[in-house]
């Protein structure tokens, strides 16, 4: 077993990891709001991500909307999807909600795959990133002035983490408001919150809609990163990796999500530098084995996450 660490020293590697980690941070912020702050087991986050990414691409490619409008609309459409799915399913208790949302996400995947005239089917959609490419070139020209011009992925890295920062600030701000306190009350004791005259259902719906919007933003960024979208990009594994990020960072901590995401993706990406004396398919199995072991280990030994508070773990569906 040897380890080739030369790539670890390259800024390129860290920018690449940083983009993916940033996308998953935004994605998991939504999960944090749902799971950590409202007590909603949203297992369909990848579905909202798909709705957002496809909405953006379709608006740009088929309706020729300008990119900023398409991105704004994609988050609105994902929120709408969140409201529709939430309105139907949020009265279900924890486990049932998990099943309903994951099935809804799979359904979104099925539509993406089989409604070819709209979604491009298996071939997916391509060519929606012209405006982004122009912006990236403009940013690169500015970066060149400070000697960072040859990192072609740096603009996306900056934009991704800027969006995460904004979302983080917004959610942290909301936490202290009466709205945020009601959410927490719901998570801790739904019946008590209802008894205080709070419309628990409406609050849960808002929480899910915001999470869906965050998933949509993550989806848009993912679409810009891989430059094409097709159904397999939004499999259920995306949601599960999001949950691994969430529990690593700790329930109830918005900033912790970023820590969890960077940590998990560094481990996942760096794991491919470990040259095990194994066939490659088996090496990749080791990688996903790590995700599973992280989930189990954290939940068994440190359920509050790496820097979360233990009392956050008492979650009633």
């Amino acid at each position, binding site marked *: 077993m040897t380890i*080739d660490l*030369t*790539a670890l020293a*390259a800024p*390129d*590697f860290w920018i*690449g*990891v940083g983009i*993916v980690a940033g996308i998953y941070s935004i994605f998991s912020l939504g999960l944090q709001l749902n799971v950590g702050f409202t007590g909603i087991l949203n297992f369909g986050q990848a579905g909202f991500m798909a709705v957002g990414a496809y909405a953006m691409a379709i608006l740009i490619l088929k309706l020729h909307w300008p990119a900023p409008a398409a991105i704004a609309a994609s988050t609105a459409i994902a929120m709408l999807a969140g409201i529709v799915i939430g309105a139907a399913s949020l009265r279900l208790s924890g486990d049932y909600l998990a099943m309903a949302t994951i099935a809804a996400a799979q359904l979104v995947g099925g539509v993406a*795959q*089989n409604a*070819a005239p709209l979604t491009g*089917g*298996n*071939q*997916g959609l*391509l060519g929606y*990133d012209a405006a982004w490419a122009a912006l990236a070139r403009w940013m690169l020209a500015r970066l060149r002035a400070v000697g960072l*011009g*040859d990192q*072609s*992925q740096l603009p996306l890295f900056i934009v991704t983490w800027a969006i995460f920062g904004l979302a983080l600030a917004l959610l942290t701000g909301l936490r202290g408001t009466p709205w945020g306190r009601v959410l927490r009350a719901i998570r801790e004791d739904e019946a008590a919150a209802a008894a205080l005259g709070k419309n628990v259902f409406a609050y849960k719906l808002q929480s899910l809609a915001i999470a869906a919007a965050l998933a949509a933003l993550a989806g848009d960024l*993912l679409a810009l*990163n*891989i*430059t*094409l979208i*097709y159904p*397999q*990009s939004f499999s259920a594994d995306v949601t599960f990796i999001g949950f691994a990020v969430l529990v690593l960072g700790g329930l109830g901590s918005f900033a912790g999500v970023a820590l969890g995401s960077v940590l998990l993706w560094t481990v996942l*990406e760096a794991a*491919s*530098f470990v040259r095990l004396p194994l*066939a*490659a*398919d088996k*090496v*990749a*199995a080791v990688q996903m084995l790590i995700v599973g072991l992280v989930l189990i280990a954290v939940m068994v030994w440190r359920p509050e996450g790496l820097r979360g508070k233990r009392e956050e773990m008492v979650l009633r569906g």
Partner: protein
Amino acid sequence: MARATHATVLAVSIALILGIGAGGAIVTSSAIAAPGFTMTIGDLEPYTGDLGPLGAPADKAVKLATAQLNQAAKQAGLAVTFKMITADTRSDPQAALSAARQLIDQGATCLTGPASTPESLAILNSVTKARRIPMLPSASSVKLRTVDDGHTIFRTVPPDNLQARALVLAVRQQLGGAQGKTVAIGYQNSPYGEGLANTFKQSWTAMGGRIQGPFGYDPNQPSYDTEAGKIVAGGPDAFVFADFPDTFGKVSAALLRTGKFSATKLFVSDALAVSPIPATIPAAALNGAHAVNAGSPTGTPEAKAFNTLYLSAPGPKRSALDANNFDSGILCGLAAIAAGANTPSLIAAQLPKLSGPAGTPFTYLQLAAAMRALRAGTQIHYVGVSGPIEFNAQGDTSAGTYDLSTWKNGALVLVRQINAKE
């Protein structure tokens, strides 16, 4: 990219200077004037995920190519060594992107693979186009040729439109015309299957033929009996399948169970054109069936030698596209020799020049001689194990020789060759 640009300028100057001298030098001692460098071929393959089964054979093919290149360089007295590094694309564009970055960071200057179009597009748009790093994917979709690749994508694998064209010709010949003949199409509901099925459908209906289906199915369905029933319903004149062996194994068992399926009416394309029939596909589903195989002449000396070479090395058995991946590896290496440097943009610029028909033909069996000729400034073209390689302006093979073969007793037997053109 300030440092890289300097390096490029330097490399070009060295190459030019040495190139001028090389013609004379080679006569006396070829080693004297040759610039020494180590070239790194980056092999991107899906070792896991849906395309997982394609990874190991492709990996082995590129490994063999690297070994051949090193051996030839030594014989030719060149101070050039070749290294191959590999990374898993996990059949996923996001992972493919990370894998590509990883290989490039480790010094890869020419990429073989990845195996699918989504992965290739992600890598192209995010990494290789901007840095002019050549990539030789084994994905065959037509979509890949229509994108603006800045002349960095080259394919030893013929695109699906040629494949579909060859399939159409084969079916038409077998049925004695297309007019009014019904072909039932089944395909794996994936980018590859859907793309090829639709391209075939268009060509066949354009010739006046009729289509039953196309019937898509998911690789992960618990059973395929209903789909099989629909495909054989009404007794179509021929069956065409666009699928990979793992799913087709399940589908073909269901086809046989209908009792209305006849292998002699079945036509399949490259991904399924495997010989001998793998254990995962019932032999009765393929014995007597016809395969249209992407330019893989079995009779040529290089193809026979490659077969021996491949089978004598440890690892997986022969499978679809292994010869094409081998050729991709060899082309990367020859282009680096032609460029005289381990610089991606120079290698990319040399790749089209290695394609036929201009120049002296060389196969991999004369690799050392080909290297010497390149160093001498002679124009050569590489004749692949998978057939002649002639890149068009899009870096695609614009015409292909296809083998129409039939499975007899579990192995493919060549019937005749089909020339498919755009």
